[in-house]
């Protein structure tokens, strides 16, 4: 059997290897290799998408190897236990949520690699870090072991730090530090939460009853879900009298702690309202192709983690905290929209709009039902494409005008008709025009939520109107109105720049017209989670 998933996750390393062999003066060759290396995982991802969806009919690819198995000391429990180990499996799987996200990541990354033609300095190291980042992102969406997920999740910090800190704009180092510390904090809390779950639900017992036991601590997601939903397991057995204590019992206090830590950890990445300041800086200071990845993929890791690891592991906590989640989501939507409205810098407007749109993901999750969850995932994928498209265009704009301030720009539709049209299209997708991807996503989130918390769904609906206001204000101000004399000589997009924009637009339209391309593979993963929730209710 071909290890397709490993090939996919580590295919960018081929590019890294080739790039490191080429001398740094051969800029053109380096760029070709960089782009080709990003196209390779895209081809693999598309192949896997068709393979899973068409060939296997809902079946999912899985790869699993034993990786780390550390024996633990058992002298304190010697007579009862024969062995005890801590295991991390190399476990990749692409079922359910992962499939559309992996494809989205591969597309956005390939387009960003293409858009990286604007990078003029240190091209070799740029593409090396870029591809190393892609390994992390692909791995995050496929890992099914908590610690493997964490490894990929944390690894993305390092290439991002370099990409922001070296190739960013004037205040790049500050932005890189801010990024590092906030995200580091997020992943630190994540690790503690994962360890709480591993130290309790991660325990599995092997061996026959009566004989000495073989205990295994592992971060395996599926097994952990099984343990948590099994009333007879160690995790859910209340400690009896003092003679038969159970150190693996997940008490209510611990469960809540783990939930809060998970929410904070993924919330920082998402980002939720008070923890968003780092991402504003990154949006403004990072080079635009990197922002495409950051806004298009990296922020989505938070939302994905919240569903795949948060909701799936601790459904009861999510159900009982769903009102809080909805309120956080609403704060994000309204706060993001209001601040987006007053921004004078297009990149900041888009950053705040990302905050606003991520609020819909939270609303979809808060619904805790089929439709809401579908909406959340659809929103993740759709916004990934939309913001990538936006920042691709912002990159083209910046290259021409040197500024992306709304008050300095205007009337660009005359000189740059194609660019302006694309910008308008991205804006329409972002405000939720039917037929484009944003519409279905937000509709489903609100629809799902309406059944549970109608008031929240109504306030959330307000957010869609607000988004129309701020998006149109920003985009129209740039494309229409008087043209500044400085920009009278600008030339419209070259074909080489237009291709990625067209591809991203196509993706947005395809999802808008045929949301099933996302929801069909997702359905299976969601059903699983919904089943757990309903069992818990």
């Amino acid at each position, binding site marked *: 059997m071909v290890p397709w998933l490993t090939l996919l996750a580590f295919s960018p390393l081929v590019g890294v290897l080739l790039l490191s062999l080429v001398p*740094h*003066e051969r*800029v*053109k060759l*380096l*760029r070709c290799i960089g782009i080709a290396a990003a196209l390779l995982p895209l081809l693999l991802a598309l192949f896997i998408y068709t393979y899973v969806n068409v060939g296997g009919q809902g079946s999912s690819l899985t790869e699993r190897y034993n990786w*780390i*198995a*550390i*024996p*633990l*000391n058992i*002298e*304190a*429990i010697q007579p009862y236990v024969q062995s*005890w180990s*801590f295991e991390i499996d190399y476990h990749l799987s692409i079922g359910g949520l992962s499939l559309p996200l992996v494809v989205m990541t591969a597309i956005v990354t390939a387009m960003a690699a293409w858009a990286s033609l*604007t990078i*003029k*300095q*240190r*091209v*070799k190291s740029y593409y090396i870090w870029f591809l190393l980042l892609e390994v992390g992102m692909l791995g995050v969406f496929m890992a099914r072991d908590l*610690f493997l997920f964490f*490894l990929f999740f*944390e*690894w993305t910090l*390092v290439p991002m*730090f*370099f990409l922001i*800190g*070296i190739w960013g*704009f004037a205040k*790049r*180092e500050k932005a*890189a*530090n801010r990024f*590092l*510390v906030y995200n*580091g*904090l997020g992943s*630190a*809390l994540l*690790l*503690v939460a994962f*360890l*709480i779950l*591993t*130290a309790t639900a991660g325990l599995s017992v092997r061996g026959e009853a009566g004989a000495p036991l073989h205990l295994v*601590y592992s971060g395996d997601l599926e097994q952990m879900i099984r343990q948590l939903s099994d009333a007879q397991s160690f995790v859910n057995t209340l400690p009896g009298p*003092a003679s038969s*204590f159970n*150190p693996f019992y997940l008490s209510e206090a611990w469960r809540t*702690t783990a939930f809060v830590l998970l929410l904070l950890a993924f919330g920082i990445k998402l980002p939720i309202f008070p923890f968003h300041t780092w991402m504003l800086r990154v949006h403004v200071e990072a*080079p635009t192709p990197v922002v495409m990845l950051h806004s298009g993929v990296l922020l989505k890791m938070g939302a994905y983690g919240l569903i795949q690891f948060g909701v799936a592991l601790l459904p009861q906590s999510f159900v009982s905290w769903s009102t809080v989640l909805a309120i956080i989501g609403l704060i994000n939507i309204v706060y993001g929209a209001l601040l987006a409205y007053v921004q004078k810098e297009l990149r900041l407007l888009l950053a705040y709009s990302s905050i606003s749109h991520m609020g819909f993901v939270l609303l979809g999750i808060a619904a805790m039902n089929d439709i809401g969850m579908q909406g959340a995932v659809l929103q993740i994928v759709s916004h990934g494409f939309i913001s990538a498209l936006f920042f691709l265009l912002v990159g083209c704009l*910046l*290259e*021409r005008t*040197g500024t992306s301030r709304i008050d300095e720009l205007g009337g660009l539709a005359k000189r740059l008709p194609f660019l302006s049209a694309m910008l308008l299209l991205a804006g329409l997708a972002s405000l939720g025009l039917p037929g484009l991807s944003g519409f279905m996503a937000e509709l489903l989130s609100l629809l799902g939520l309406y059944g549970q918390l109608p008031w929240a769904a109504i306030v959330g609906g307000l957010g869609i109107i607000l988004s129309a206001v701020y998006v149109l204000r920003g985009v129209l101000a740039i494309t229409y109105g008087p043209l500044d004399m400085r920009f009278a000589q600008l*030339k419209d997009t070259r074909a080489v720049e237009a291709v990625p924009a067209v591809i991203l637009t196509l993706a947005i339209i395809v999802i808008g017209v045929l949301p099933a391309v996302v929801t069909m593979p997702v359905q299976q993963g969601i059903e699983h989670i919904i089943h757990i929730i309903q069992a818990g209710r």
Partner: protein
Amino acid sequence: MNTQLYQPLQGSDLLLMAPELTLVIAVIVMSIVDLLLPRSINRSWIGGMSLIAVLVSLGTVIWTLVDRYQDAIAGHKVGVIELLGGSYRIDDFGLLIKVVLLIGTALVILISIGHIRESDIQHRGEYYYLLLPAVLGGLVLVSSADLITLFVGLELLSISSYLLVAIRKRDRRSTEGAYKYIVLGSTASAFILYGMSFLYGMTGATHLGQIAEALAQNADQFLPLLYLSMLLLLVGFGFKIAAAPFHAWSPDVYEGAPTPIAAFLSVVSKGAVLALLFRLVFHILFGFQYADGLGYLSSAGAFINEDVSLILLSIAALSMIVGTTMALRQVKVKRLLALSGVANAGYLLVPLGLNIFQPTAWYSSNFSTFWYYLIAYAFTTIGAFAVLAMVCRGTEHEELKSFAGLYYRAPWLAVAMTIFVLSLAGIPITAGFFGKLYILLGAVATHALWLAIIMMVTSVISFYVYFGFIRHMFMRDCESVSHLQTAQPQSFELESEVGLESPKGHVGPVSFKRIHVSVASGAVVACSAAAVIILAIFPNELMTWVNTLLSLANDIYAAS
């Protein structure tokens, strides 16, 4: 218990003490030859000779361990072998720690061979044959089962270290550091002796096994004294391992010491004392009611364990917080690494303090996590010091600035340093990350959640500190610390078609100071970087080995 006071030393015992004796013989031979040789003869070979001695010693340790491992696999585990009237023990605990100490010393000697020049240190012979007694002290320390032997080992290590710090006679900082080190180090030794005297007073014994046994019977009568003695010991050892709040000496001393010696202090010296503390805490304070093996505590004696555990964990938490926050504004590299050593002492104290006797947990893997973190820390820190030694050679200030633009000057060195920095910060996929992961797992499994959170938050703060190296190496110009002037990523001319422009890929300044990478130092950096990655990816064999060998009941509690 051993009642016979005098045991003649057998020939076979000499074989068991081969690691120590090798070093003793090497020191004697080297010092005599150095004395007799006329001044005109070059002494470079002494470094090589001391390296050989350490490697031979390491070989014998590993040979013994392999032997014991095969016995353990075959089912007949060799227990503790006691020598010299029970005051010296050959056990797996000591042997495993010795591996780390000797590897650390070997790497330090290699750095010294590449780094130490005649112009810097006039007495190169002395330098090398002082390193050997220092590590010999460490070996004695981790093998001793008697307070007297233990103290002899400790002082051998300390006094040799004082001399090594002071060896740059003409350098004022070196003298200042050495002076501080001697004064505070001796004070710490005094604390330790004072604490030991109470232990002796309570139990009438200096042998650890006898002390544990006596305490098990009569601890209730002496509780206040026991606490006093314990606190005095912890203060003393706290100084020696530079744990907060007893860390103030370490930045000054590291700054004054030659770079390889700073590496030695932060790895070998710290590791040896921590291991000793591990033995003391588990043997006397945690285990005093369990002369016959492990078991759960009766409620009567539980509180002293809990108190010791709490005090150790508090010192650990304080060290992490102080070490990382003080490093935030530190620009001098050696001081920064000294503070990083403080924080790491904190991480290493966690497995010491995790109470395995509380009934809420089954966890007892304290030693293997401790050992793994120690060896990961050893490779990482020594690697970082080796890079530092090369980068800061010839610069007066030894500031972070000297790392600026390192990527352009010596790319491979910069890559290696990045690996070390990531490992120190605890970012995958490095040994430092897995070391922290295993320690954290222990903390969470024993329900010490507060500690786990402090550990993680301090390691995030340390991201900022350690990534300072990366900022300088990759993002700064090496002539000035200002931002790269050329880095304006957006070109305003659209016409400059892709690839037609002149190659601007290389922004590095044209004239810069070359970094001389000597073979010895380069080997240290390469080995350490490889070890940091390999330990992370393939820990299974090694950890199985450690786990099979070490048994808390046999190696730490076994009374004679």
